[in-house]
């Protein structure tokens, strides 16, 4: 028996099972909603029906796992409240994903393109586009994603810049969020709801306390909380069972490893691995 040198493929199999089984057989573990997600939900929920919302969805397929369920949940919430989202993206590989999210959300809530929502598509230029939206949406996006001139879309009449939108929502996995905070929230003083990948989220806590951001949805967990708040059972909540199980499996593996180490007498420093950091400056593997 040598658990300490367990073939890593055993670990891989455990992780694969812990991910796939809960997706096939969901148990729907309860989750609690954090105040940050609650604040995001309430900000959307408080808007009167018919309000326009500018929604910038800026992520590419490699991180869609965290943000696509979030987009669907937030869009469904907008539709359910009778809000009118105007959706755009600043990433070239994103339109396909957004088209799918809009399709799922609008069908689920029975809404129609160009009457209940508009999809402007992709525009290159990151920061300069975000700045440009403060002046004129039509200059930045002369047509919508499918090539219809904005002039011919009745829903867009009289809506051309931040001033016409009582809420801006940005869901992203990159520093696009910083630009929206700096430009839409700070310069144009628009209420802003932010969604981010889990890794990014804690970097944006300070903007919540400073009031520049009204609500913050972090990663798959945040999306699951949003779904829970809406009473939905979407991809994020489905994923959370798998999350719980994988986390537990890793923790158990670590505990087993340490028990084995203790039993083999390695705790007193007899095993390989050296003294750890702090002596010479660099760090040996702890």
């Amino acid at each position, binding site marked *: 028996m040598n658990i300490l040198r367990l073939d890593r493929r055993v670990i891989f199999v455990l992780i694969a099972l812990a991910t*796939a089984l809960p997706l096939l057989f969901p148990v729907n573990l309860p989750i609690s909603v954090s105040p940050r997600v609650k604040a995001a939900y309430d900000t959307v929920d408080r808007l009167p029906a018919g309000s326009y919302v500018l929604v910038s969805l800026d992520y590419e397929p490699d991180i869609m796992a965290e943000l696509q369920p979030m987009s669907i949940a937030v869009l469904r919430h907008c539709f359910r409240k009778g809000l009118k989202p105007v959706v755009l993206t600043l990433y070239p590989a994103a339109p396909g994903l957004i088209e799918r999210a809009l399709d799922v959300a609008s069908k689920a809530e029975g809404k129609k393109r160009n009457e209940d929502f508009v999809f402007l598509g992709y525009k290159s230029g990151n920061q300069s586009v975000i700045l440009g939206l403060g002046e004129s949406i039509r200059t930045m996006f002369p047509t919508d994603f499918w090539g219809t001139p904005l002039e011919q879309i009745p829903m867009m009449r009289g809506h051309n810049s931040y001033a016409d939108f009582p809420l801006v929502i940005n869901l992203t996995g990159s520093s696009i969020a910083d630009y929206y905070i700096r430009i839409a929230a700070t310069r144009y003083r628009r209420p802003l709801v932010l969604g981010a990948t889990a890794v990014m989220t804690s970097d944006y806590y300070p903007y919540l306390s400073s009031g520049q951001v009204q609500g913050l949805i972090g990663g798959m967990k945040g999306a699951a909380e949003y779904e829970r708040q809406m009473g939905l059972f979407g991809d994020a909540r489905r994923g959370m069972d798998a*999350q719980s199980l994988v986390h537990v499996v890793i923790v158990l593996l670590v505990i087993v490893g340490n028990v084995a180490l203790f039993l083999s007498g390695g705790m007193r420093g007899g095993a390989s691995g050296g003294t750890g950091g702090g002596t010479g400056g660099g760090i040996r593997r702890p």
Partner: protein
Amino acid sequence: MNLDAQTWIAAFLTLCVFSFLYRDNPFYRFAEHLFVGASAGYLLAVNYQNVLRPNLIRPLAQGHMIALVPLFLGVILLGRMWSRTSGIARWSLAFYVGIYSGIAIPSYFQGQVFAQLADAVKPFAPGWGAVNSALVLIGFLTVLSYFYFSLPHRGVHGMSARVGIWFLMVAFGASFGYTVMARVSLLISRVQFLLRDWLHLIPGA
């Protein structure tokens, strides 16, 4: 392309990559080589469409002779292909490194040095929060002392650096544990793709 065919191709490539977990094999090797070629080509095409066309070809076609400057800098860089002309490329590299060092200096100074300083001198939180503020301050100073290179880690400085290491270790542990969820999210999404979009074993969103 047919959406079904796209799903099958994507599923095949997904499995090719997953096979890496077992060990290196021809499927992974195929996916790897395909990926390298496709991404290098994609970057070339994107740079042609978004950089060379608007910033070089169009201005030259319209007679803006100033665009000869970047053309010259670019062409001499290609001198690196042959050893006899390789030296001339140094001029455009010198230009390039000057620009980006010039960008780095104020942006690191503002974004990392001053921004952190400004955050570090914010007033202590009231009540029990002050304990946390004090801990942050102690952590900041001890970790900074770990990075003080001109003194050996002995005596008071050594103790402070050691406490700094403890703070670093706690931060690393927290950061590691925190990242697990993000990575598992990505795996869940790939498994969902296989089980739902490809095999239709679980219901749609």
